[in-house]
């Protein structure tokens, strides 16, 4: 796989760097996302590493269909593991007011889940994203169909169904794979209900380059072992732009998860994050994120008595954008776990990141 990546990189390097916009058919983007965490409590985790290296090829296949192929290598426990990250056929020309994808892709639910980590406005995943979805995004193979409702205001509806054999981050997937072998492939059984999801999005224009997008999300899946997952979410993005900069950004997601299994207790959890960012100049941005996470079904060990709990984090973040293609970011994470009748557990981390994008111009998504 590494060899394939290397050959592709070398083969595309000349076109990508010399005259990208003159490449008539295929667009090429290479992206690096590097991190250096400095955990104050667990110094053994402090290691600069490449979080991901991606090579994405995309373009029209013919007058009707497009294709995207994204190879990525992710750092997992210190080792770069390459994989086909996304690979899908898509079209926005076949059915009026609609678009669809077939293949392997980031599921079109929530806000963060639809973007690569190098396109996020902060460094690390809020706990709600990591716990309920994945460290980057839930990736699966299946089909997704989106359509614009024929109304005077913007209402975009997405429905999707994917095979659902795995769910969550790569790390979770690998863990599941190991677990599968250990437990005689119990988890790799055909899921009782494959992963299915629905997202409805609306947009409100407030004039003067201000706009708010909000979405309602549902995702469900029942694993081969009968564990049922139901996720309900609300995501909000507000932007105010001035000239060439987004001078104020507010982004938030609120999720509720309901887990149930035939022989297990009901598990209910909720989490949210809210991030606000101001442009200090064309190149400098400062923001702060607040994360919240709570379990409604946590018991004191060995009892049926509920244990009150709350996990929260405050994450101030600064970003320097050298250009649209290179930026540097620093964040401080103050994470506090409160458990009833226990002392608070506090963890502090300083994170440094750089992102580099080579090749085709990245899309300015709202």
């Amino acid at each position, binding site marked *: 796989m590494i060899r394939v990546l290397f050959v592709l990189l070398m083969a595309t390097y000349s076109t990508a760097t010399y005259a990208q916009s003159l490449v008539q058919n295929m667009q090429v983007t290479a992206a690096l996302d590097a991190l250096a965490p400095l955990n104050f409590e667990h110094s053994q985790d402090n290691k600069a590493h490449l979080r991901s290296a991606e090579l994405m090829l995309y373009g029209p296949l013919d*007058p009707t269909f497009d294709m995207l192929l994204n190879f990525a290598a992710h750092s997992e426990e210190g080792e770069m593991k390459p994989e086909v990250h996304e690979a899908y056929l898509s079209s926005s*020309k076949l059915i009026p007011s609609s678009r669809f994808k077939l293949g392997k892709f980031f599921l079109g639910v929530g806000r963060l889940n639809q973007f690569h980590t190098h396109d996020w406005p902060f460094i690390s995943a809020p706990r709600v994203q990591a716990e309920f979805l994945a460290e980057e995004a839930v990736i699966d193979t299946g089909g997704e169909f989106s359509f*614009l409702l024929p109304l005077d205001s913007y209402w975009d509806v997405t429905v999707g169904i994917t095979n659902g054999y795995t769910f969550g981050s790569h790390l979770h997937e690998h863990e599941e794979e190991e677990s599968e072998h250990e437990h005689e492939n119990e988890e790799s059984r055909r899921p009782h209900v494959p992963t299915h999801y629905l997202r409805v999005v609306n947009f409100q224009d407030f004039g003067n380059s201000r706009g708010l997008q909000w979405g309602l999300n549902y995702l469900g899946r029942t694993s081969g072992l009968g564990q049922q997952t139901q996720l309900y979410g609300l995501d909000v993005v507000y932007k105010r732009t001035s*000239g060439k900069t987004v001078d104020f950004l507010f982004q938030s997601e609120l999720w509720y998860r309901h887990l149930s299994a035939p022989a297990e207790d009901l598990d209910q959890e909720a989490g949210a994050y809210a991030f606000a960012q101001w442009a200090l100049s064309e190149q400098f941005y400062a923001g702060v994120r607040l994360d919240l996470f709570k379990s409604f079904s946590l018991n004191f060990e060995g009892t049926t008595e509920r244990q009150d709990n709350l996990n929260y984090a405050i994450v101030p973040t600064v970003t320097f954008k050298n250009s649209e293609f290179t930026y540097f970011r620093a964040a401080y994470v103050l994470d506090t776990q409160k458990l009833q009748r226990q002392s608070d557990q506090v963890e502090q981390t300083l994170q440094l990141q750089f992102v580099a994008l080579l090749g085709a111009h990245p899309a300015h998504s709202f």
Partner: protein
Amino acid sequence: MKLRLGALILLVSVDALAKINVVTTLPDIAEVVRAIGGDHVTVQSLLSGSEDPHYAEARPDFILKVNKADVVCSMGLDLEIGWLPKVLSKSGNARVQPGGKGYCELGRSVETLNKPTGRIDRSLGDVHAHGNPHFNLSPRKLGESGGEVLKVLSSLDPANKSEFEANYSKFDKTMNELEAQLKSQLGKMTVMEYHQEFTYFFNAYGLNSVGSLEEKPGVPPSAARIAKMAQIAKKNKVSVLYATAATPHKIRERFEELSGVKVKTLPSYVQSHQDPKTIEALQKLLVESLQ
């Protein structure tokens, strides 16, 4: 039978009266389309002229407007590359996507300036491989660009082709006359710009430009660059440096302080919600700022 025939005639009449729904990226292009399409088009611009069209985002309200459009007209030359492709693909409207009958890039008809030669990569800054895309500040170039609008409208509504052709000739003539008239009011002057978005204006009116304050397009100039250009401006007796509202204040002030040259903040596009609301008004504003 008579009723059916009547209904058919009514349907045909309604169809004949249906206007072509055109969405443009900028108000400047909207004016070109209105001039050529006349009563046969309805036109709305996605941007209001106050934004930087290179850094705009694929807003959902843009997607909705494009979803309902028969034609989408853009400047092209990669000016809107960051957001327009996303808007087009998310609209689910095959008519206006590349290859569709309603896809219209005005820059295709324009002989561009600052076309880079040799190796092109991002070490050169935000370079456009097909040349400087800010041709809207030359009335004559805007006239040229109307050729693309004529092609697309004539293809969609061949019954009114001759009217579109007549409108186009009139528009092209008006633009050429406007440029000639305003040029006669200006003498020889030496000017500068912050970003290469006034280049076509300088070129159209025979103004001598000593260059841009940005060393590389889209990259804010360093302190050394500002100092160097301030020296050049002094030496060449530059009258004015043209900038837009997006130009960083500190850079503007520093350059003024070092060079003694007045920096004028002016719009580089027609504005939807405030003056200047027409191509002519914008040109006159720019010319008057030199007098």
